[in-house]
């Protein structure tokens, strides 16, 4: 199998990047905040950065092995690299860009990526989406054994981004080779990737499917990165088999997870409901306070109450006539909480 296997370490500015990953013919996303070492991982695979120790192999090809003294030059690796902002050659036409490193015929690729009509255009004349397609076509023209994508959507405006995310997702599904992409946006990763690794301070915190990470975040960093509210507190066994968490900011939260000592409570915004009165449902946890921020995004409204973000439909926000500074109740079930280890990262949000 043409699997990409990495196991390497190298010192970066303020921490050490240590990584061991194996991926088959799948799309694998490295997610993490800026400065977590994500791009460096791609540069190591491409041969643009030399690790201090370790081994990188693609199928039977050993690309790097510190013990054997192997370090294949970038131009001799079967690696397709789509750079952040695509790095198209500005002095060449689209066709010249795509054929620059091509092994096979480029005409077919231009057709496949719907850029044949732009063959004579220069990168400066292209839209963001067209540039992305040229960047992908150029990388694939080399018939690589692995495709690397560095923040493939970050150069785009929000409107184009949503459309291209789907387009890219379909395209990656068609490819029959390992794809390693990095992004700081968990949502992008969730749409594009089969598996995700959360990276912070040069270490992988958790590997799994996007839904694994949401359902059971390994620690507070992963929880926060996947979009959860994270509240610090001290846990102790409570009544009815539940765990009682005394929050550092005051108040008590009940959870079905078991834990003792310093923990963080993770709860996703879509599990937090907002009401004017104490709701008559099964929710055990209530936080009462003024709305500190209210943001409507399409058909959803994000409401912040004392550091806790809840997501309700825009319609119900309207029906409740929510305004900033209104005192409301944010409620969530004990079953909707996850107790996770406290984050030990400097690179978190």
């Amino acid at each position, binding site marked *: 199998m043409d699997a990409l296997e990495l196991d390497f370490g190298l010192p970066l500015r303020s921490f050490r990047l240590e990584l061991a990953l194996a991926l088959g013919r799948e799309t694998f996303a490295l997610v993490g905040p800026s400065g977590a070492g994500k791009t460096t991982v791609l540069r190591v695979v491409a041969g643009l950065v030399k690790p201090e120790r370790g081994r990188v192999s693609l199928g039977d090809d050993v690309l790097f092995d510190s013990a054997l003294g192997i370090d294949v030059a970038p131009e001799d690796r079967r690696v397709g690299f789509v750079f952040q902002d695509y790095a198209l*050659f500005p*002095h060449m036409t689209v066709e010249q860009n795509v054929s*620059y490193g091509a092994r096979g015929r480029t005409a077919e690729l231009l057709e496949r990526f719907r850029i044949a009509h732009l063959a004579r255009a220069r990168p400066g004349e292209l839209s963001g989406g067209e540039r992305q397609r040229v960047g992908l076509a150029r*990388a694939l023209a080399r018939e690589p054994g692995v495709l690397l994508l560095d923040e493939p959507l970050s150069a785009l405006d929000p409107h184009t981004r949503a459309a291209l995310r789907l387009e890219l997702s379909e395209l990656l599904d068609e490819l029959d080779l390992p794809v390693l992409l990095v992004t700081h946006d968990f949502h992008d990763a969730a749409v594009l990737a089969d598996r995700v690794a959360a990276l912070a301070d040069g270490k992988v915190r958790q590997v799994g499917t996007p839904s694994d990470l949401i359902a059971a975040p390994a620690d507070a960093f992963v929880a926060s990165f996947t979009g959860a509210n994270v509240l610090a507190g001290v846990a102790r066994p409570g009544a009815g088999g539940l765990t009682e968490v005394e929050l550092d900011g005051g108040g008590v939260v009940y959870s079905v997870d078991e834990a003792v000592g310093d923990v963080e409570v993770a709860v996703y915004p879509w599990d937090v409901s907002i009401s004017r009165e104490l709701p008559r449902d099964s929710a055990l946890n209530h936080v009462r306070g003024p709305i500190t921020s209210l943001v409507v995004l399409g058909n959803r409204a994000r409401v912040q109450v004392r550091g806790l973000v809840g997501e309700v439909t825009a319609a119900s926000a309207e029906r409740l006539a929510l305004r900033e500074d209104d005192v409301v109740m944010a409620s969530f079930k004990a079953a909707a909480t996850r107790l996770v280890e406290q984050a030990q990262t400097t690179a978190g949000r």
Partner: protein
Amino acid sequence: MRRRRLFDVAIAGATAVALTFLLLPLVAIFLRVPLGELVSQLGSGVAVDALVVTLETNAIAQALILLVGTPTAYFIATRRFRGRALAITLVELPLVLPPAVAGLALLAAFGRLGLLGSTFDVLGVTVSTGTKTAVILAVAYVASPFYIRGAIASFESLDQPLLDASRTLGAGPARTFGRIALPLAAKGLGAAAALSFARGIGEFGATIMFAGSLQGVTQTLSLAIYAQFDLDFDVALSLGALLVVVCAAILFTVKLLPAWTRSSSTSVYPFAPSGSS
């Protein structure tokens, strides 16, 4: 209100004085002798000889500067090595060195009795005072830093991801240099070469110290002006006028080059440091 007006008048006045001071001598060259006279003086033997010597030596010197300076600049711009800052400083040293000292230093190194003088003789190259080779060396010595410095800046301003992309697309370092770095830096290199050319054309101090002033052999335009200064002032003036025109043309070329770069550039990539996340 009145004070502000006074200030405006003061700075405008200073500007007028400065511009007049800088332009007046140049205009005077052309006003002193009728234009027809200026042109006809250029036909004199001294003038033609000086023009030929200047063009010949500068053409060779600039070719050498481009040939050796371009890879040097690329190396310094794209590699990180111990002593890099020192290398850049050494390149810049001839810029601040008095030309007379440069001439003296060249004499000490390449003159017949100098450090390498005998070595050059063995190679069949006669360098010593009174040869064109000496003029070429003097010009290359004082002018090359202008080119190398500008070329380093052009190569440094290239987007590193473009060079990286070329490598990942199967191009080795040499092909990346030829097909990506060189074309993208070409306009900056052109501007740097024009400055170096201007410096070389006007070279005086190092040449007169090292190569001497022999008509038809080492006497360049600048040296001829100095020689004719006492003999025939009109010839000196016409040679001066010629140099003013040539230098002005070079300056305009340099000013126009970056404008072309901006208008025809299709690069949309913001600067991205190679060490990002």
